[in-house]
């Protein structure tokens, strides 16, 4: 057909055009010293927005020639997608106060991040603030492309009113071993006190496993990440145990399988939730809540039980022109004072050593948060490996199919996922 011939003839023209749009050179080292106005993004969580605004305002008063513009991160189904698209367009801001560690390998691969270690005293600043736990945030080349900022240790929230209705203790609820937890869950549902015992979001987004599987895997293994030394670790007794636990929860309808828009714990549909302290703002006034660590097969050990950090970090992005200012602002926003304000305004744990002593008055006034602060010392992170987002998606798909929907045995599904992930991790980025 004529149009095909025409299309074929267009090929040489297109090849020429494409050759012209190849890549260019890299960034300049002197950008690290440039000073001037910058833009930053923070999350759209209401408390974080409030914190962000006051922080930006106070900096702007002190630095009239280096004004900072703060914006909420654009809404989308995941922040990674927004940031990735912005990187491609070259339109991302200098600093993003909502960088998920799982996305850092992808952003690095895109050439979208600035190494914080390249600033004088960069690495030591990070390590002085966070302590030895900072090293998991290093990239494979040993440099820091992200600054550990705040964590939300994932724990089990329980609704005291519902527990009381079901005849269960509200001060020391039986939730430390798997068998105890399952029995409690059954009691909660069969007594009619709640529709579901617990209701983590069953949707298939790659990050959902961070709120059902991963915290419990951390606890069960005493702190092993999903991937270690280039190999998936979850195809093991511990991984299978966690999967079997959740499979039973879903099979007996103790956890719901449908996706939802309303938070079920806040609405009273679920008796428990597995989430971090950022959610407390949602529950205030709606639920009389208590908190315990996630269960393990053998039984948890107080607040020494490892869990998932659900950390959000700060990163500096490649399209930033005034990196000097950005670095100074980064340090300013993570000072002792600002970390304190972050804690008081949002209830989330700054990843700083010794917060319980530093901010003792806060913890005295809000004893419920002490348990999170203590837990923050025992958190694990997502592994910093290539194709990390896809790795988690593969895991989630296998989890969904086997554990939630019962279409396959979890052992087989997890084994399959492990093989696939090993391949992805080994692939050259």
């Amino acid at each position, binding site marked *: 057909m004529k149009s095909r011939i025409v299309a074929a003839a267009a090929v040489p023209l297109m090849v020429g055009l494409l050759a012209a749009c190849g890549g260019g050179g*890299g960034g300049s080292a002197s950008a690290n010293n440039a000073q001037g106005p910058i833009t930053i993004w923070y999350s759209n969580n209401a408390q974080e927005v409030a914190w962000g605004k006051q922080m930006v305002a106070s900096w702007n008063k002190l630095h009239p020639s280096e004004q900072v513009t703060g914006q909420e991160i654009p809404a989308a189904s995941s922040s990674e997608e927004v940031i990735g698209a912005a990187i491609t367009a070259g339109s991302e801001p200098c600093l993003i106060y909502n960088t998920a560690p799982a996305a850092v390998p992808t952003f690095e691969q895109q050439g979208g991040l600035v190494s914080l270690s390249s600033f004088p005293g960069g690495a030591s600043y990070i390590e002085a603030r966070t302590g030895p736990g900072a090293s998991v945030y290093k990239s494979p080349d040993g440099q820091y492309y992200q600054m550990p900022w705040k964590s939300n240790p994932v724990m089990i929230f329980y609704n005291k009113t519902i527990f009381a209705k079901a005849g269960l203790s509200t001060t020391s609820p039986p939730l430390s071993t798997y068998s105890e937890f399952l029995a409690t869950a059954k009691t909660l549902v069969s007594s009619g006190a709640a529709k579901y015992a617990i209701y983590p979001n*069953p949707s298939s987004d790659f990050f959902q496993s961070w709120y059902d599987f991963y915290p419990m895997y951390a606890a069960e293994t005493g702190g092993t990440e999903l991937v270690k030394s280039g190999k998936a670790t979850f195809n093991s007794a511990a991984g299978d145990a966690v999967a079997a636990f959740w499979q039973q929860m879903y099979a007996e309808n103790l956890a719901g399988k449908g996706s939802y828009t309303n938070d079920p714990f806040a609405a009273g549909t679920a008796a428990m939730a597995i989430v971090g302290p950022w959610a407390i703002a949602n529950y205030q006034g709606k639920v009389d809540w208590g908190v315990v660590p996630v269960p393990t097969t053998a039984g948890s050990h107080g607040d020494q039980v490892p869990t998932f950090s659900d950390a959000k970090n700060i990163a500096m992005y490649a399209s930033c022109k005034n990196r000097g200012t950005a670095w100074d602002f980064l340090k300013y926003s993570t000072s002792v004072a600002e970390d304190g304000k972050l804690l008081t305004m949002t209830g989330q744990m700054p990843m700083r050593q010794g917060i319980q002593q530093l901010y003792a008055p806060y913890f005295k006034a809000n004893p419920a948060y002490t348990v999170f602060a203590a837990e923050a010392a025992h958190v694990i992170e997502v592994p910093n490996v290539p194709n990390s*987002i896809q790795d988690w998606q593969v895991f989630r798909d296998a989890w969904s199919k086997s554990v939630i929907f019962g279409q396959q045995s979890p052992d087989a599904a997890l084994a399959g996922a492990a093989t696939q992930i090993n391949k992805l991790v080994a692939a050259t980025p």
Partner: protein
Amino acid sequence: MTSVTAPRPKFPPLEGELRPDARPSGRQRLTRAAFGRNPIGMLFGAPYALFIALLFAYPLFLAVWISFHSYFFAAPGVSVPRPFVGLANYTAVLTDPAVRQAFVNIAIFLVINVPLTVILSLLLATALNAAIPFRAFFRTSYYVPYVTASVATIGVFLFILSPGGIFNHVLGPLAPVPSWLVNQNWAMPSVAIYVTWKSLGFFILLYLAALQNVPEELYEAAKVDGASWWHRLRAVTIPGVRQVTTLVSLLAIITGANLFTEPYLLTAGGGPDGKSASPVWLIYQSGIEQNHPDFASALGVLLVILVLLISAGVWLLQRRQA
């Protein structure tokens, strides 16, 4: 059609204009050979041609090019290797179970949507074609869902089909657990019913226009022969609108294969266990979310080829029957 008896406008004669009936001189013949009789057409058509070149031809070629290379998005100014990988992306696509599931989902969708669309739109168009009171009202009411944004109508359907929604209330114990849109077996059919409802108006109008071309005498003859309503439908109406039936089927197939917004919003992405994932949603997920545009482009090219094949098949089938 509208009559063309507009009065002849008067324009002052201009120098040098070529009268259509004049014999062209040598120079004019040359111009005509090079640029055609009305070279100003090139000027008129230039913006559109530019638009096509910049925003259709170029991306189309780029999509195909990307599908044969290892490609990911990088920040501006960063140069990354983009090696040619032959059919590797296509192999990856064809062996991916999620892709297979997506195509199965679309097959389920088409099996429900296309026959339902053809039958319902023909029946309703036939009913609307007769002399009935409030014709304009009925026509409007069937077309309204089509002109409304999908996002808007999806909002209502989410409400109606929610686990505690009115549909389940009415069904009582017959309501499936889990509810429709989060149920593995019912998610895609629910999407299919929704899309059928939404687009029916457009197809009804296509049929209406075609029905008006079916000569009345055929119906009269059938009536005289004592044919019942059903027989008249089969003997006169259906053959009479055959071409539109093909058009309707083709359009329904093409739209169905390229579904994105409806399953994405109704079933939150891929749906329960990926049972309502559409291929275009996978293109979006792999291309934008996971930064694998090479995989996404290969999937896109395969999707287009599939659609073209099916369309060709339907069209040939129709030709043979004619």
